[in-house]
């Protein structure tokens, strides 16, 4: 079944060309290809042996031998998790997006982005990985630039240039590593780093800085996050969902795959500073969200906060001296859970904000009031998403956050103690939203506000059920990556 | 006074100079043509003179060259006149001052 991964990567591209070639039915074709990828992801999950820890379903071809570039794809638990997440987020994003003008281009670009994401999450060779990594950037840029809201030019350019700058820095750093060591293979580089032979002297720091910058911008980690609120605010609903649901995971994935295994010593030296950045993301982002009046911007800031939890867990696992294996496993599992959960929940939140915008063309927090009286279903389901996002037990958000905090508290107690403030501020923000939108007297914008329609329920209900399922019986997700967690914890210790 | 090569050369030089002067100074195309004909005549004179005073005056080489040259001159005069007429028809003038189409 080794061809499965390649199929996953190629299918959306084929779909994109088909969408481009056909005059009509763009949305249906895109959705059909998403069905194919969903089936592919499911088959991948089925044929993946969860009890093994290494790469599986590996496909390897020589590509450009001169520069050590290979076509090398394979999945471990983490990759599989992200592939599944991508396969979930994209169809919902396509369903969520109201048909814009030029729907053909929109669908085609979305499909290309999807292919790029599959590639990013499965490639095991830097050149290939970087190719996909950058390939995702261009559709995203175009999607924001063409179909975005007001200020789209500025936001798209900022998004593109900022992330591209990071990518260039990372590419340079990797070229440096390649010239020093002659390999682009993730596994090989990891082995070298483990024995301390990767790089020496100031050059190490330069390479570290380059890769760190590239990934920190992508995640984004405070204070490299300022492109995110603009981009997420401006992007059309479906693109916001994809950006936050899948694209933002590329940064975290990069941290786990590249930076943390390759530069263990540097991270240890910078440990407290990195943890501080993560804590800043966690605490400052929801504070800033509190001060926003635009709902989309608010959700964007909370997205920074949630990815901050991931970074806290990762830095705690790698950046400190004394690390019991149990706690590392807890933190890593928490990070993986959080990656998945944030993808689902934040996408759902963007979807709901998108519905508000679609119905009334407004998304200010003060533009609505008393919606509960007109649209109880809408408010109810949106509340579930918000409670999931603020980490209410019984919903998916809690599991990941609990494990991250458990792991990082044991390793870096003081940082974690400050970070729990993020939980409070997130709650304050969502309480403010709920109070402002749902309660109080019905104001004029909500008078003819339609409750959830049948087609919208098709998006909302499965996603919410998934949230409940992960919150109550999360074992099925843990099974995917437990062996990988064990292996990775050993690798980092 | 015996005719010497010197004398012929002086005459032909004078003839050439007169032809040149005519070609350079006259503005009328016909006169320039006539000047050129004079210069050709000077050249022919030179051919004949050099032949006559060459070590082997028995071979008729000089005469042949001169005849050939005269034939070319005749042809040239014909073409030149035809050109002048064509130019006149086109520009209604034969003054070379007005004809500066070749100006760079």
């Amino acid at each position, binding site marked *: 079944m080794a061809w499965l991964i390649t199929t996953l990567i190629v299918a959306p591209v084929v779909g994109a060309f088909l969408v481009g070639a056909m005059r009509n039915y763009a949305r249906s074709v895109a959705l059909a290809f998403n069905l194919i990828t969903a089936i592919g992801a499911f088959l991948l999950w089925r044929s993946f042996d969860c009890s093994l820890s290494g790469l599986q379903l590996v496909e390897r071809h020589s590509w450009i031998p001169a520069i050590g570039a290979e076509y090398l794809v394979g999945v471990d638990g983490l990759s599989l998790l992200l592939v599944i997440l991508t396969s979930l987020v994209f169809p919902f994003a396509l369903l969520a997006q109201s048909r814009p003008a030029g729907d053909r281009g929109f669908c085609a670009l979305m499909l290309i982005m999807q292919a790029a994401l599959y590639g990013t999450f499965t490639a095991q060779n830097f050149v290939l990985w970087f190719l996909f990594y950058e390939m995702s950037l261009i559709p995203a840029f175009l999607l924001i630039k063409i179909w975005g809201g007001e200020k789209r030019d500025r936001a798209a350019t900022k998004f593109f240039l900022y992330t591209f700058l990071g990518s260039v820095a990372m590419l340079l750093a990797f070229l440096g590593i390649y010239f020093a060591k002659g390999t682009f293979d993730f596994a090989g580089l990891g082995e070298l780093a483990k024995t301390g032979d990767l790089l020496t002297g100031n050059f190490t720091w330069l390479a570290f800085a380059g890769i760190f910058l590239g990934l920190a911008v992508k995640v984004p980690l405070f204070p490299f996050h300022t492109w995110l609120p603009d981009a997420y605010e401006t992007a059309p609903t479906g693109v916001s969902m994809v950006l936050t649901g899948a694209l933002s995971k590329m940064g975290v994935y990069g941290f786990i795959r590249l930076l943390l295994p390759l530069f263990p010593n540097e991270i240890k030296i910078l440990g407290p500073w990195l943890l501080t950045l993560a804590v800043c993301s966690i605490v400052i982002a929801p504070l800033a969200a509190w001060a926003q009046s635009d709902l989309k911007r608010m959700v964007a800031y909370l997205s920074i906060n949630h990815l901050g939890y991931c970074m806290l867990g990762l830095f705690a696992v790698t950046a400190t001296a004394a690390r019991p294996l149990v706690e590392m496993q807890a933190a890593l599992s928490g990070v993986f859970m959080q990656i998945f959960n944030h993808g689902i929940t934040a996408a759902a939140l963007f979807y709901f904000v998108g519905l508000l915008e679609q119905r009334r063309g407004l998304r200010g927090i003060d533009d609505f009031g008393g919606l509960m009286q007109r649209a109880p279903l809408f408010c109810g389901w949106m509340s579930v998403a918000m409670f999931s996002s603020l980490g209410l037990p*019984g919903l998916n958000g809690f599991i990941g956050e609990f*494990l991250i905090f458990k792991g990082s508290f044991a390793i870096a107690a003081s940082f974690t103690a400050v970070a729990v403030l993020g939980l409070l501020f997130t709650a304050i923000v969502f309480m403010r939203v709920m109070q402002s939108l749902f309660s109080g007297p019905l104001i004029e914008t909500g008078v003819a506000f339609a409750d959830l329609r049948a087609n919208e329920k098709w998006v909302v209900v499965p996603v919410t059920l998934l949230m409940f399922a992960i919150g109550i019986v999360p074992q099925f997700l843990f099974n995917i990556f437990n062996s990988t967690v064990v292996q990775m914890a050993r690798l980092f210790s | 006074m015996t005719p010497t090569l010197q004398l012929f050369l002086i005459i032909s030089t004078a003839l050439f100079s007169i032809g040149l002067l005519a070609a350079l100074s006259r503005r009328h195309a016909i006169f320039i043509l006539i000047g050129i004909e004079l210069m050709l005549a000077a050249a022919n004179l030179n051919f004949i003179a050099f032949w006559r005073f060459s070590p082997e005056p028995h071979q008729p080489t000089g005469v042949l060259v001169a005849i050939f040259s005269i034939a070319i001159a005749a042809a040239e005069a014909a073409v030149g006149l035809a050109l002048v007429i064509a130019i006149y028809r086109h520009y209604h003038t034969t003054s070379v001052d007005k004809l500066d189409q070749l100006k760079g």
Partner: protein
Amino acid sequence: MSSWIVTNLWLIPAVPLGASFIILSLVNSRRRTAAALAIIGQIVAFVFAITAFLPTLYLPGFRAIHNFTWFTFGDQALRIGWMLDPLAAAMMVMITLVGLCIFVFSVGYMADDKNFSRFFSYLSFFSGAMLGVVIANSLLLLFVSWELVGLASYLLIGFWIERPSAAAAARKAFITTRIGDLGFFLGMLWLYHNSGTLLFYDQGRGCLENAGLLAIGASATFIALLIFCGAVGKSGQFPLHVWLPDAMEGPTPVSALIHAATMVAAGVFLVARVYPLFSLGAVNGVTPSLTVVVSVGVVTALMASLIALAQFDIKRILAYSTVSQLGLMMVSLGVGGVAAGIMHLIAHGFFKALLFLGAGSVIHGLHHEQDIRKMGGLRWIMPVTFLTYAIGMMNLSGVPFFFSGGWTKEEILHSTAHWRVSPLPHYLMLAGVILTALYMTRQIIYVFLGSARNTDFQSVRPAESHSAEAATTTENISVVRTDQRPVFHAHESPRVMTMPLIVLALCSILFAFVLTPAWPWFHAYLNGEPARVDFTLLIQPMLFFSLALVAGGIGLGWLIYRRIPDPLARARPGLFRFLENKMWVDEFYEQTVITFSRILARLADWLDRYFWDGLVRLFAGIGQALGVLSKGFDDHGINAGVDETMSGTRGFGRLIAAAHSGQIQTYLGAIAIGMLLLLVLYAWLG
């Protein structure tokens, strides 16, 4: 049977939770089905609770646990479980019984509400979540249920969502309790880290058993205090008590449920549940963490009783009395009287639910009038309510003999008397007893005795009042309160509302018989000892002393509050206003913590927009400036050089072109000169 119920203990919270979700999926118009489902769910839970209660009766100190793996992360298993012990069993019976009464009462109270079925869904959810707290054998499971209780309280307090004040109160409750929960969360993480498990009891390996406690060691104090933060938030202890009086914005049955049986009890229950952590390393029953518990409890109890003296909203008085009673329970736990505290918790559950439902009955009878100044003389109009309310008041004031509240309060005072650290809590609690008697007497006098006071409205004609009533009941309860409701239109509540009152009153009286010192069965049951009968213990100096205090308090109240308006307000207006405004704690928080956080938020936003993004823009600007510079260099450096060469070439070309005059004679002349020159050159060179 006993093992079956232990394994399936989860059914007790699951049944109400399931009922809640089923009701939620019903259409709003199926009102009868909704209420029936909720009540049946509660009855089933009650039956299960009794089933679970029975086995705990046979064996003193019965404790059965059922643990299982929730999920596995890495190669670690996270285990949770539930347990059945006297504490859990007693709490379950109390919650389900009180809950059942409240559910039935709600059928009458909420009869006119358009979101009737949603209300029952929330109530069931609340009940289920609270039962989850009680059965948990794992701090994690407890925390999960704890948060769900918080969610349910949020939903219920903000039930009349179209009222801005209700939504604000709900938000305040959620956030305030979450502040406490942060501490709880950290304490849980710390505990997990130190002991390696969150199970309370796990055949010797649990965190509350010897091995676990040994592993926790010296950090127990901090862990206990952090966990106590959660209890402070949930149980409305100072300084996080501010949400509790505001929570009165919810419908009255909700107030009863939150303030009597469930949510606020959770904090006290939590402390009792993890008591081994608090008492770890105790010398003479005193640890730093317990001393903190006592201090918080004392401050809360006194402060709340004082504030209760100066409130005019019938529910707010009860709310503050709840806060003060919870403080009392905390004091009891802190001084070592765990059983006493829990006994009071359970007795309080009965009589406070009774009082709240009584207040609800009054409010319902007066068409949503809550100001006690506009009541009075209701004793004849609402006899059942009056009688049951009086029983509740006796309980709360601490009259012993037939009232359970009296005995439990006695027990608590007894425990405080033996505290080694300071006698101060004991005396302050005695003062609290007087205050409690005082404000309850005041309330009774205001509400039930005397004559109807709002004569201003007596002139309203019945026809008008009917229309006003119709407007309030059919449309929406939240519409602006018109004061067009004459008190003579008041009526006794229907049977569906009075029956729960009677049941609760009976419970609070019957419960007294297992609390007396003569046969302290319940005390022994909680402590896992066999109970002895000894009637001589009834004769105690303490008993008479506190009886005298209660009688004095009630008598004093009678003397003071016979005359209305409030004599205290006239005698000490400044003090009264201070108390009436809840000691300005809310305003203090508004001015300090909340303003500060708002400023922080603004600052974060500002920094983000201008500083961090400014830095990015600065770098972008530098890039742009470099671009401009490079363009300038291109334009004026490189381009200029090329241009210069180009123009030079062109000039030279023009120069040459000038020779091409087109004048044939010029060319001819040039040839001639050239020839001449060649000639000269030839001649010269030879």
